[in-house]
């Protein structure tokens, strides 16, 4: 098995505005199973960061435990990273973010890590609207422990051994909208043309940006009867819209029919161009988003694309009024004002 990727790259690779070719954003060679959807999502993250001219040292990748949580090793090798305890990635992300708001936070989790052991952490990080991108690589099974059904496995879905799941699935996207998440999207690892602009938009969102990505497990959950196989997802996928992400200062050059395009302006001036495929749906209206998801579900379809966005979102720092300056650049006198100051504080509480 190869464990080193050859160093040679295509000599004609284009460079982004920072002068980096895309390989600057790659990681080490994946050790996941051949054909794993997670690798496509990693490649989507690499592509998005390259296209948005992200400086790799301004990114922190965080993850929990599971196949999904191994992936930060396979992208952005020049960025910061923290592989945390199972399901506890949101706590670590919260701490890191509060200490240094200048970094961009990429949380990578899986269906087990978020919908089972880490559910408590997941709902609270949504509630707090921590500014981060939170990607769930959702394959409906515990791939790392040989494919048991996970909490997102659909009722009636058949696993590789042939047994049928009798429990209802936790729908992470509906849950996120319900809990007040300010950016909720759903996508499929096999459709990078949709996934990459969604990741780019999520990175520009001023708050918690959640992307639930259906990512087939080729080894344990790609069989006939599974609702998370490549074939099943391709047959049942229904998109809310096609998405173009337009960074600030760029001219918008989409050529869709008038009236079907909705432009959502982000806080930094960039624009998400949505070419709506479902006329009754409005991505800035929570009720409409919930309706759209539930309707699709009732029809047995998987709705993908940007489901809901609140572009006026206020993130945790805005809400708490915390300092604008990363703590590691504050002088000790400010970080630790001394016992006199403590006395003042204590006196104020008497």
């Amino acid at each position: 098995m190869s464990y080193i990727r050859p160093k040679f790259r295509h000599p004609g690779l284009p460079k982004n505005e920072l002068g980096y070719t895309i390989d600057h954003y790659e990681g080490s060679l994946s050790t996941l199973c051949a054909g794993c959807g997670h690798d496509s999502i990693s490649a989507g993250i690499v592509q998005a960061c390259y296209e948005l001219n992200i400086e790799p040292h301004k990114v922190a990748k965080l993850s929990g435990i599971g196949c999904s949580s191994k992936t930060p090793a396979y992208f952005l090798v020049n960025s910061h990273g923290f592989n945390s305890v199972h399901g506890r990635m949101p706590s670590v992300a919260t701490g890191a973010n509060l200490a240094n708001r200048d970094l961009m936070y990429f949380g990578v989790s899986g269906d087990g890590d978020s919908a089972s052991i880490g559910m408590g952490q997941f709902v609270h990080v949504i509630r707090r609207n921590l500014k981060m991108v939170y990607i769930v690589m959702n394959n409906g099974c515990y791939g790392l422990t040989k494919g048991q059904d996970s909490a997102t496995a659909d009722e009636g879905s058949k696993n590789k051994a042939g047994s049928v799941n009798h429990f209802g699935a936790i729908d992470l996207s509906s849950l996120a909208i319900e809990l007040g998440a300010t950016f909720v999207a759903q996508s499929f690892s096999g459709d990078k043309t949709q996934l990459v602009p969604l990741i780019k938009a999520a990175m520009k969102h001023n708050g918690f940006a959640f992307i639930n990505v259906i990512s087939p497990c080729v080894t344990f959950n790609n069989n006939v009867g599974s609702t998370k196989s490549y074939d099943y997802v391709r047959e049942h996928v229904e998109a809310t819209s096609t998405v173009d992400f337009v960074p600030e200062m760029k001219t918008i050059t989409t050529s869709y029919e008038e009236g079907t395009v909705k432009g959502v302006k982000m806080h930094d001036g960039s624009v998400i161009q949505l070419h709506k495929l479902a006329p009754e749906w409005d991505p800035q209206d929570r009720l409409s988003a919930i309706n759209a998801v539930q309707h699709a579900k009732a029809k047995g379809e998987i709705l993908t694309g940007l489901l809901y966005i609140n572009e006026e979102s206020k993130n945790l720092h805005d809400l708490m009024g915390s300092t604008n300056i990363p703590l590691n650049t504050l002088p000790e006198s400010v970080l630790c004002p001394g016992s006199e100051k403590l006395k003042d504080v204590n006196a104020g509480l008497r």
Partner: protein
Amino acid sequence: MKPTDIKNPEYFHKVVDCQYACPAHTPVPEYIRLIAEQKYDEAYMINWDSNVFPGVLGRTCDRPCEPACRRGRVEKEPVAICRLKRVAADNKGDVTKFMPKGPFKPNGKKVALIGAGPASLAVARDLAPLGYEIHLYDEQKLGGGFMRSQIPSFRLPESVLNEEVDYILDLGIHQHFNTYVKSLKEILDKHYDAVFVGTGAPRGRDLPDLKGRKEGAANIHIGIDWLSSVAFEHTSKIGKKVIVLGGGNTAMDCCRTSRRLGGEQVKVIVRSPFAEMKASPWEKEDAQHEDIPIIDNHVPVSFVVENGKLTGMTFQKVKAVKDDKGKRTLVPTGEPDVFIEADDVLIAVGQENSFPWIERDLLEFDKWNMPVVNDRSFVSSNKKVFFGGDAAFGPKNVITAVAHGHQAAISMHLSCIGKDIMNDRPDPMVNLHSMKMGIHEWGYDSAVVDDLRYVVPQADKKVTLTNRKKEVELGFDIATGFKEAERCLNCDIQTVFSESKCIECDACVDVCPTSCITFTSNGEETDLRERLKAPATNKTQDIYVSDILPTGRIMAKDEDVCLHCGLCAERCPTSAWDMQQFFYNVTKAGKIWQEELVIVK
């Protein structure tokens, strides 16, 4: 684009750039792998089958394979293919046990080969095992032709040449050395069933109209004649100051030989700019390494003779100017002419064919006084007479001569057994088989090493410049040979795609280090080349296109910088990609229709 027809062997053949560029289509990656495995006998025999003179070519080949090498497109330098061939030749054991052994059962036909150079010897090697009675004629006392007379022994030791010539002569060839053939008619009158002309391009160009040419004749020599005279030990010294005129490989051999025969101040003087010289870059380097300056942009004006003795030459200084159409002309700079001292001058400004011994009524010649020869069958307008090597289409090189020899031998054989020399030619031998050995294991060393090209060590200049026969290049030792062999990208291990197995998971696209693979909508080739993950600007390399996949897209792979690392196939969950070894071998006369060997007289 239409789906690529990989059943056509020429498609994958073209992907093996080195083999495709080799005139004899030697299966290069195959023998390089064998060298890495220290199977030198096998590596040698793969070469011997294709190019007949591995030891000679491993030292002297023009290396058309190396500029084609894929490694040169992803890194600075190609694999040292030529010098690896020498590693096989240097380290082999007794290979005669793998070679055909006479006496062969006579088939009753006899052929004559005129000239004992590489082309004729290749014909002899291919035809002898078929039972032909082969008569080989040469004016020299030994076989080898220009390989012996032109290539100095400090580049090609006589022992190496003798060994490889003898492998062929030992097949039971009737040798007529020291025999100058004066008339083709005389040969044909001896009732040969076929005659092969491999007499090379034996006439060196002169500068007869240059002032002082006649007066200084005693110290002015034609390069190839002089080299030949050195090789056969008729000449053993030269003046201290030598001018070599010309910028080709013969000029390089002349100047380096001069250094060994007493030339202390040897200069190469060329008309054209240095970069446009015909000599191979490595031969120019070797000359400069031996303290021989190469003076470019100097056009010879006259030989200067004082008191009946040559004292030097005058040159006009020029510069290269390109006109609107890009045509290059040499324009005088207007500076005064330059005088350069010389005791001897060697003229190496090209060579040409010469057929004074062929009666023109026997076969047709064109307006350039060259025989009319078919470029596939090598037959002349006389259906019993075949040409090959430099004699066929003018001066080229050893490997081209060998390739001609193979094809001419096929034609001669076909003609002798009453078959059509154009339509009955044999197809190449082709094989394609999977290298998959386990889930993530291949039957070849798929890892791509980062090593830069290794330099072949040379013997000390102090020794080589005093002994004409001391070989300059020492060749790679076994360890370095292995490391250099590992630089080969195994281009013959093909990426074979089966669309019926593909689930479009994109794993291959994501993992490919050189961004070769794209899944996209189909289109015309020019449009598709623009839309790939990295634009496919190298038009000489094909795009491998699949049929339509379930999502309506196609798989398009740019062959240009594929590293053949096998990662696409390793990351493919369904084996839609597979690494398959492609073997392509030009069929030689000795291998065809053995069952039809019984020829009725």
